[in-house]
């Protein structure tokens, strides 16, 4: 199956690969996986005092579409408030990357990852 040009671009030049210290209170970490394909995705956000996502990093082991979905997502969430980031839908990612139907689950994984990262941050900052 041929990947779209946008998927290839993110796959070959992934943005924001890396990690933050997950113990840091301004960091939210989302860990999600898709057992059926063995994919693992770690997505982290660094949130400032105004509740704006200042920076985002990811590490994904999976197919090109999963890497591209998480790479794109880290670009999108930077500068957004937590509330705005929650609004991002997997369908937005799938559309932007022109994912074929069999790869839609990769964009779902990315949406789950950002939701998990936000939930982790909120749990930490609330505690």
């Amino acid at each position, binding site marked *: 199956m041929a990947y779209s040009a946008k998927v290839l671009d993110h796959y070959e030049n992934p943005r924001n690969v890396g990690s933050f210290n997950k113990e840091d209170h301004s960091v939210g*970490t989302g*860990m*999600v*996986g898709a*057992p*059926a*394909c*063995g994919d*693992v995705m*770690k997505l982290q956000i660094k949130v400032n005092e105004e509740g704006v996502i200042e920076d985002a990093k990811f*590490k994904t*082991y999976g197919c090109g579409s999963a890497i591209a979905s998480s790479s794109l997502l880290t670009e999108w969430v930077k500068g957004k408030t937590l509330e705005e980031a929650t609004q991002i839908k997997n369908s937005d990612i799938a559309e932007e990357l022109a994912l074929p139907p069999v790869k839609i689950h990769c964009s779902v994984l990315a949406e789950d990852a950002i939701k*998990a990262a936000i939930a982790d941050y909120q749990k930490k900052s609330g505690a």
Partner: protein
Amino acid sequence: MQSPLTKDFFSLFGLPVAFHLADEELTARYREMQSAVHPDRYANAALQEQRMSIQVAAHINEAYQTLKNPLSRIRYILELKGVDLQDREAAPDPDFLMRQIEWRETMEEIQAAGGPGSRLADLVKEITAYIAELQEKIAGELEDETLLSAALRHYNELQYFYRLLEEARDIGDMVD
């Protein structure tokens, strides 16, 4: 007599529904059955019977492929027992996933350091041990109706380990 097409894969081969099965027994039964329904035997039979033999042969093939592989065998037993494979409660927890990422990182380091060697061999040994341990747990859990959700969670974890093993072997193959 019940049509072979509606029998579950285990009873098709006359085997009990369980994770542990004797490979030789499965393969022997498969060969017997496959030769009994081979379409060549029906070359002179009525069209109806010829079609039937092809269908049954395909069914036996599918059953054999499903039961031969440990992962698909577990999946099939879970389905037989009515377990919802998509149940999110059984998703691996973040710590497990974090550990998986660390394993992948180790694998990248090994690859960057030139591929196979004792480190890769140790890793494969370690992964294989995890697989054996998980499969043993799952075999027991599948026998107990109250432990099916645990079996599903371990099945989900097992898929990651098989994936790791596959990648470790790919690294090994590259230099061989």
